[in-house]
């Protein structure tokens, strides 16, 4: 069966939220929510779900205080909706938005929309910012239904300004640069015409950061030329820690640079937050490069030592409520001008 959707009733992110809603295919008098807090910690609990109308049921959850996330599956008799085996998660107190996603199209593979949806539900991600190396691939996806906001992938000398303007006028929320695979330095002067469009529209630019052409030194020089345009360093340098800390130094000195956290261990994310401030850090994951299990793949895929789901639990527990909300979604909503819209 296709997995249903678990969310807080009303889509609220208030700490008083207590009612959880299930929209999905399981129905019947035995409908129940089987759940645990903060990564299925004991005690595992069960509560009966009340059917409000066909395909929509709710349950009141007690004991939220002191917890940051609820992991669950829905059962009815012998049938279970466990999100294709990856379980559902909802965060307590905020709606998580992933600022770095990829979807290649409507195919059934790891990078297809179904796989990404499963992954997002398993991590409590209600929406995300997505890009693909061929912009046309996203044209075939119902992005609104998938709760995705697209970026325009810019390849200097290949992507036309007309296409960039058209896509930004029809739903795209920013530009995406990948100097490494597209073979140009991140401070290439040919980028200026695209950055000028971004500046006029008021949208941010997300740039892969890594050794070589995508080095933070190059990206900083680009950001310096367009000081009013937010430039987001995707991955905060996909490489050795020296580069990651150099990216942080650039962010401290250049106010329009922002750091995205995909493939960073949670202690590094915490270090970035403590150094640059909560307003400058955006949670991102690069999902679903690793398929539907992207956020909790085994063996762990974040530097080989932790899963996203485990790392995020530790990170959120370590932060105050406002900081967690900013890093886990509100900063991306602000930078990408989502105006509170989260497709939620």
């Amino acid at each position, binding site marked *: 069966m296709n997995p249903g959707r678990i969310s807080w009733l009303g889509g609220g992110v208030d700490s008083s939220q207590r009612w959880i809603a299930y929209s999905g295919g399981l129905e019947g008098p035995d409908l129940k929510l089987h759940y645990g807090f903060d990564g299925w910690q004991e005690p595992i609990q069960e509560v009966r779900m009340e059917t409000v109308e066909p395909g929509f049921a709710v349950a009141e959850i007690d004991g939220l205080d002191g917890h940051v996330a609820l992991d669950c599956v829905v059962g009815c008799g012998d049938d279970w909706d466990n999100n294709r085996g990856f379980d559902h998660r909802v965060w307590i107190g905020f709606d998580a938005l992933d600022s770095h996603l990829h979807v290649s199209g409507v195919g059934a*593979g790891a990078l297809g929309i179904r796989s990404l949806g499963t992954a997002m539900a398993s991590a409590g991600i209600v929406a995300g910012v997505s890009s693909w190396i061929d912009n046309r691939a996203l044209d075939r996806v119902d992005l609104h239904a998938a709760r995705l906001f697209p970026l325009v992938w810019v390849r200097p000398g290949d992507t036309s300004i007309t296409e960039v303007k058209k896509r930004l006028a029809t739903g795209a929320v920013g530009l995406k640069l990948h100097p490494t695979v597209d073979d140009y330095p991140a401070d290439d002067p040919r980028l200026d015409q695209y950055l000028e469009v971004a500046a006029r529209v008021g949208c941010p630019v997300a740039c892969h950061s890594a050794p070589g052409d995508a080095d933070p030194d190059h990206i900083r020089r680009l950001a310096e030329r367009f000081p009013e345009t937010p430039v987001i360093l995707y991955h905060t340098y996909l490489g050795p820690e020296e580069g990651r800390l150099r990216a942080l130094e650039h962010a401290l000195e250049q106010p329009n640079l922002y750091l995205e956290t*995909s493939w960073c261990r949670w202690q590094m994310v915490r270090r970035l937050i403590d150094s640059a401030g909560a307003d400058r850090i955006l949670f991102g994951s690069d999902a679903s490069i690793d398929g539907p299990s992207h956020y909790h793949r085994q063996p762990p895929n974040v530097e080989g030592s932790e899963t996203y789901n485990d790392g995020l639990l530790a990170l959120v527990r370590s932060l105050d409520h406002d900081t967690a909300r900013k890093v886990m979604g509100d900063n991306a909503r602000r930078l990408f001008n989502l105006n509170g819209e989260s497709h939620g």
Partner: protein
Amino acid sequence: MASHRIVKWFRDYADDIEAVNIHYVLTAVDETPDWNNARTTRYMPLVGRSIRMKELRLPRSISDTQGRPSSRYALHYYFEVCQGGDLQYSPLYSEEVVTGSGDGPDNGVDQPDDERRGGASRLHLRGKA
């Protein structure tokens, strides 16, 4: 700095191919490629309805096994194909590169009909975007 240019082609073999990258490593002749530390990844854009092309800008020389600059070296490469949301990998190819001795760029151009198709050699290597 002058470079040696080699053009690689790829013909899409299905309608649901969503992206193609070429991964490559340069080594001295007969040396084993170090994919983890020396790999370069480039996107192959469509230049026709189903034809992709990428011009690789390679150095005029690299160090041979004795550490001396050599204009004769090996290019190891494979294609990563995203089809229907799944990543597929071509077989691994290796070829000898001999660069020119002049100052300007020189070329090594495969023809489009030297097409490479996705194969069963899954190398478990990837490039993050």
